[in-house]
C-alpha cells in the first residue's frame, strides 16, 4: 500500500496518536530481559533488540483465560446462568513486533479460525481489535532461521505496518487499511530511503546462516518420519518440560478446566503442552503418548509434518529461535529437523 517516513524525532507524536483511543504495547527492557509492556513514549520502547524472550502470543491467547462464569444453583434467578466474559473493551496496538511473531499469528489464525464450527471467538475478538506494527530485523540472531521456514527478517505477513530502521528515521510501510490509516499523516518516503531499507533487508537475510531443510520431510510419509530412529536420541536428554512450548509463538494447545468455588465457578483455559504426560492422559488411564519419545516426537512432527499436511504446506514454525535459546538441555530444533530431513 503506502510507504511513509517516520522520523525518529517524530516518534513521540506518532505514538501519542496511537495511544489516543488504543492501548499501546511494545518490547521493553525489564530486569535485563526483553518483555512486552504498555508504553506511551518512544523512549520506553526498545528499538534495538533481538526479540522478546517469550512470544507475544499471550496478547491473543493468554496463558490463563477465563472463558465464562457460571453459578450452579437451581431456583436462584442468578443460578444456572452461564455468563460470557466481556470482550476486549479497547483496541490495541503492538508496536515493534518482529515479523516472525506476526507471521506466527497468521499460522495460528488458520487454527483458531477455520470455519463456522472452529471459530475461536476469544482469539478472534482480540485479533480483530489489535493493530500490529512490525519492526524489521536488521540484526538477526545466530539462532534465527526464519528464512528457511517461509518467513523473513523483514517479512510483512500478518502485519498492518512494518517499520524499518534506516538510521535517524524509519521507513513505514502499510499493508492493510488499518495500517494505511495510521500512516496517513506521515510524509512520503524517498527512493533513497526505500533503497536503504532494501539493502538492510538483504543484509539481514545474509546474516541468517543456520536453517532447516524440509524437502525430504515433505516427501516422506508420516509413518516413515514417525518410525525414524532419530527420536531415540532426540528424546534422551529432554526433560519433558514446557519451556519450548510456552516460549513458542505458534504452540497453541490448551486445557479447559472448570474452577469452582462453592456454587459459582469459571471455565478457564490454560496453556497446555504436549511434552506433559498429562496432556494426552485419558480418563481410563490409557495414555496414547505414554513415553517421553512419543511426546518429544509429537512436537516436531506437529510443526513440520502434520500442520504442513493439513494447512497446504504451511510450516508450524516461524524460525524465531526462542526454543533454541531457552531449552534447558539445548535440544536444537534446527538439528532435529535437519535430522528428520536426512
Amino acid at each position, binding site marked *: 500500500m503506502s510507504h511513509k517516513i517516520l522520523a525518529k524525532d517524530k516518534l513521540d507524536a506518532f505514538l501519542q496518536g496511537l495511544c489516543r483511543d488504543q492501548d499501546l504495547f511494545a518490547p521493553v527492557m525489564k530486569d535485563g530481559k526483553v518483555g512486552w509492556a504498555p508504553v506511551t513514549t518512544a523512549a520506553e520502547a526498545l528499538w534495538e533488540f533481538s526479540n522478546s524472550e517469550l512470544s507475544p502470543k499471550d496478547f491473543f491467547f493468554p496463558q490463563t483465560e477465563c472463558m465464562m462464569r457460571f453459578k450452579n444453583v437451581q431456583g436462584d434467578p442468578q443460578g444456572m446462568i452461564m455468563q460470557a466474559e466481556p470482550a476486549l473493551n479497547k483496541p490495541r496496538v503492538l508496536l515493534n513486533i518482529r515479523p516472525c511473531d506476526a507471521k506466527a499469528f497468521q499460522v495460528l489464525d488458520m487454527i483458531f479460525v477455520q470455519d463456522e464450527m472452529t471459530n475461536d471467538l476469544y482469539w478472534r475478538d482480540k485479533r480483530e481489535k489489535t493493530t500490529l506494527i512490525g519492526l524489521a530485523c536488521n540484526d538477526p540472531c545466530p539462532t534465527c532461521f526464519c528464512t528457511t521456514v517461509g518467513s523473513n527478517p523483514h517479512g510483512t505477513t500478518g502485519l498492518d505496518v512494518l517499520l524499518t530502521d534506516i538510521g535517524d528515521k524509519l521507513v513505514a510501510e502499510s499493508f492493510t487499511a488499518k495500517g494505511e490509516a495510521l500512516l496517513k499523516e506521515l510524509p512520503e518516503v524517498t527512493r533513497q530511503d526505500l533503497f536503504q531499507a532494501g539493502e538492510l533487508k538483504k543484509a539481514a537475510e545474509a546474516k541468517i546462516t543456520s536453517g532447516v531443510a524440509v524437502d525430504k520431510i515433505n516427501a516422506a510419509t508420516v509413518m516413515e518420519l514417525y518410525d525414524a530412529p532419530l527420536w531415540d536420541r532426540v528424546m534422551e536428554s529432554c526433560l519433558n518440560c514446557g519451556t519450548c512450548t510456552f516460549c513458542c509463538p505458534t504452540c497453541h494447545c490448551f486445557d479447559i478446566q472448570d474452577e*469452582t*468455588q*462453592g456454587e459459582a465457578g469459571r471455565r478457564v483455559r490454560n496453556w497446555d503442552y504436549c511434552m506433559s504426560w498429562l496432556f494426552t492422559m485419558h480418563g481410563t*488411564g490409557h495414555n496414547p503418548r505414554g513415553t517421553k519419545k512419543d511426546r518429544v516426537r509429537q512436537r516436531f512432527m506437529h510443526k513440520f509434518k502434520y500442520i504442513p499436511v493439513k494447512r497446504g504446506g504451511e510450516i508450524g514454525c516461524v524460525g524465531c529461535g526462542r526454543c533454541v535459546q531457552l531449552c534447558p538441555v539445548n535440544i536444537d530444533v534446527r538439528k532435529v529437523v535437519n535430522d528428520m530431513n536426512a
Partner: protein
Amino acid sequence: MTTKARQQDPVGAVMVVGGGVAAIQASLDLADTGYLVYLVEKTPAIGGAMSQLDKTFPTNDCSMCILSPKLVECGRHPNIQILTQAEVQSIEGQAGDFRVKLKQQARYISLEKCIACGACAEKCPKKVDDEFNRGLNKRKAAYVKYPQAVPLKYTIDKDNCIYFQKGKCKACEKICPAGAVEFAQEDAQLELNVGAVIVAAGFRPYDPSPFAQYSYSRFANVVTALEFERILSASGPWMGHLVRPGDEKEPQKIAWLQCVGSRDINNCDHPYCSSVCCMYAIKEAVIAKEHSHGGLDATIFFMDMRTFGKDFERTYEGAKERGVRFVRSRVHSISELPDKSLRLEYATEEGEARTEDFDMVVLSQGLEVDPATAQLCQDLGVELASTQFVKSGSFSPVATSREGVYVCGALAGPKDIPLSVMEASAAACAAGGNLTAARGSLVSLPEITPQRDVKGESPQVGVFVCSCGINIAGVVDVKAVMDYAATLPGVAYVENNLFTCSQDTQDKMAQVIKDQGLNRIVVAACSPRTHEPLFQETLKAAGLNKYLFDLANIRNQDSWVHANEPEKATDKAKDLVRMAVAKASLLEPLSEAKLSILPKAMVIGGGLSGLNAALELTRQGFETHMVERDAQLGGNARLLRVTAQGEDVQAYLAELIAKAQAEPLLKLHLDTAIKEVSGFVGNFKTTLAGPAGEELIEHGAAVIATGAAERRPTEYLYGQDPRVMTHLELDAALLTGELTPQKVGGAVFIQCVGSREPERPYCSKVCCTHTVESAIHLKEHNPDCRVTVFYRDMRTFAERELLYKKARELGVLFVRYHLDSKPQVSLQDGRLLVTALDPILGREIELEADLLCLASAIVSHKDESLAQMFKVPLDQDGWFLEAHVKLRPVDFATDGVFMAGLAHYPKPIEEAIAQAQAAVSRAVTVLSKTEMWLSGTVAFIDPKKCVGCGVCWEICPYQAISPDEHGLAVANAALCKGCGTCVASCRSGAPNLKGFSNQDVMAQITAMLQG
C-alpha cells in the same frame, strides 16, 4: 423357650438378672462368647442407675452418651433376649442345668406393634410421679421409661391406669396409630432352662426420709444426689438448667452432705461406706459450677474424702482448684428459712460451732440393697453378708454361696461403674467357664444382611439431624439445619429425630434407607467417637456398607460449646452437615479383611492376677503361655498375709501355683523376658528370652498383668532403723514369725507415705485397709499393744469400713495429719519416737514405737518397652491406660490385648482377681471366634504412583508396608491400623487412607470454606 439338655452336657444359656450396666456387660460378654443370654429386667427398660446419671466421674463423660451404645448393642444382639417387667420366682436344679421360673407382667402394649410415637402418652389423662426423674416431675400412666430406653416401647402402668382402676378410658387404645394397645394382655409365667445365673440386680439409693435432722421430706430444697443428677441432666425435668425444686430458681450456693446412709448405724443400719459418694459429690459440685451462671458456691461436708480410684485424687485436687470448698464436718441439723433456703449448723474441725445458709442441700445418699432383691437372693439360696450385700470370697469374687449362681455389680458391695463392669465381665467369665462344653450350642449365627452394591449409583445421601432431646435442639435450629441439608447436592432424604441413637429410630433408619434407596448416610448428632459404630450397625442392617457413613458432630462440638450463640451455632451446624455430606458423597464401600484367630493366649506376669487369668483361660480350653520375669510365681502376693476378709493368702497362693504347675494347657516361662512382639489381634508373635534362649510364641490374645511394686520409702528413717518397715515387710515378718504381736508394745502406722503427694498425686487404695487389718491383728493378739495410726483420710471403702470400726472398737488410736505437718520420726538413745500434731487436741503428741509401719505407695513399673511392644499406652503415673475408663476397664485400644491387676492401678486382691477374670472374659470374646473382620480403614498404595522411595515403609509405625518384588510399596491390611502417616509422608501421592482419603479431606476443606 426351653431346651432339653442331656444329663451330662450343661445348658449353653445364661440368665442375667438385672438390667443395669453390670447386667448389660455380662450379657454382652456371654453373648459374644457363644452363649444364649436371657436378660431379666424388672422395669420396662434396661439401663439401670447409670441411665439416670448425668455425668460419670472422673472423666465427666456424659453417662447416657456412653451407655446408650451399649444399650442398643444389647437390644439388637442376636444372642440376647431381653425380658422386661419380669422377675425371677425360683431356681431349681443345679449348676449347668437350672430351671428358672419367671413372672412377666403384661405390658398392655405390643412390643411388636409399638412404634414409640408417644401418642398414647400424650393422650393419657393420668399423671403420676416420674420415677426415672425421681418424682421431680410427672409422667403419664402410658409411658416410656426414658427417651433412649431399650426396648423403646411404651408401657401401661396398670396400677395408675384409669381404665384398669375405674373400668373406662382407653384413650390410648383409640389414639394409637399402630393398634399396639392390648388391654387383654395377661401376666405370663415362664420357665427357662439355663446353665448358669448371674445376679446383677444392683442397688437402691438410700432413702433419707427417715433421717430426721436433714428434713429431706419436709424441705423442698433438700434433694438427694440422684435427684440432683436428674436436675443436672439435659434430659431431666428442667432440661439441665440448674434450679432448685422449691421455686425453680437458680441456686447460688449449694451444700453436699456426705455419708447420708453410709458409715452410719444410728439413723440406719449401714456400717459400710458406699464407696462412690465422695467422687459423685465432687463431680456434681464441679458440673453444677459449670452449669451455674453466676459462679456457684459449692461446699462439700465430709468425714473422710475417699478418692481412692484411678485419677480420683486428681479430680479431688482439681475440684479444689476450681473453687469447690471442702469442709471436714458432719452437719448436725438443717432448718428452712422463709425464702426456702436452708440453714446448716455444724462444728468445724477445731470444734467451733458454725451456722451457714445455703440455697440448696444435696444429700449424698449411700447405696443399699433393695429388700426385695435381698429377699430374691435368699429365695435363690444366695447367702448375704450382714450388710445385705451378696457374700463372696476374696478369691472367688463373683461366686455366690450357690454353685452356678454368680453375682456382680453393686449387689456384691457398693462400687462404681468400672468396677461393676469389670465384675460383670468376671461373672461372665466364671459363668461361661463352666459351660464351655455347650458354647455355641444355643446361639444362631448372626444373620448377615446381604450388602447392596452401590457401584455406579450417584450419591443418594440421607441426612438424619438429631435433636438429642434439647441437647442440640435447645441451641441449634434443627429445623433450619434440616431444611438446609435438603438443598445440598446429593441429598435425597432428610429427617429430624428426637434421639437418633434410640433403637426405634435406628430401626426406622434402616427401613428408610431401604425404602428410599439411600446409599450414603449422614447423621448430624454427637461424636463419632462414641456413636459411629452404632450407626454403622444400622447401615449394615439396612444392607448398606457401613463405611458409607459420616457423622457431623453438632452437639459436643457445637450446641454444647456455643450455648449462648444459637445463630452462630446453627450456622456452624449447617457447615458441619455440608462438610459431612461432601465427604459422605465421596465415600466408597470398604471391605474388611478376614483374620483367622489363633486360640492361644499369653499372660504376662505370674502374680495373683496373672495366675488367675491363666488358669481361667486354660479352664475354658485355651492353651496359655505364662511369662514371668522372676524365677518363681506369685508376685507381691508372696508377701501378703491375709485379705481384708481375713482369708489366708499363702494357702491360697500355694494352691494356685500347684494348679498352675499341674495344668497341661498352661506353659510356664519363668525367668523370662519379652523381647519382641509383632503381629496383631488373633496373630501375635512374641519372642521370649528365657534361660533356654529365645523362643517364638504365637498367640491370639494377651493379658498384661505385670503388677506394680511397693515403693521403698526414703522418709521416716526407713532403712536406718529395723523397726521401720513397710506393709509388705511387716506381713512377711508376721508370716515368718520374725515379728510377733506379743513383742510389740507400741505400734505406729503412718499412712500416705509417698501417695497423694505432688510427685505421686494418687491414692494407693489398699494401704488404709492394710493398716487397719494389721492394727487389728496386733490388737487381737496383744490387746495391750498401743496402736496409733497417723492418717490423712481413712479410706476403708465399702465393707472395709467395718474393719475400721472394729479397729476403733479395739482401741486403735487414729490421728489425722495434714500434708504440711507430717509426723516426725526420730531416734533418741535407741528409742524410736514419732511426734505429730493432734488436730483435735490441738497439741503435739509424742509416741514411742517398737514398730513403725509405713503405708508406702504402690508404684507402677512404668514399663514403657512392654507398652510399646504391644502398642498400648501408659498414663502419666505409668499405669496401663484402659480403652475407656468407665466402660472398657480391662480392654486396651489395641485389639487383642487386655490387662489385669496392679498394672492397671493399685487394688485389693478380690478386685485383682475379678479383673483377671474380666480380662479373660474379654480375651475369650476374641479367642472363641475362629475368625474376625478387620477395619476397612486401612492404607492402600497405588502401584502406578509409587516410585519405591521407601519413605512409607521406613516410617510405618506398624511395619505394615514393605516393598514388593518390583521395589514398590505394598500395604498389609492386617497390620495396618489406619493412622495414615504413610499417606502424609509420600510425595508421590501413592498411598491413600480408605475412609480418610485425600479426596475426602479435600472435599471437607472445600465444603468448609466455600459453602
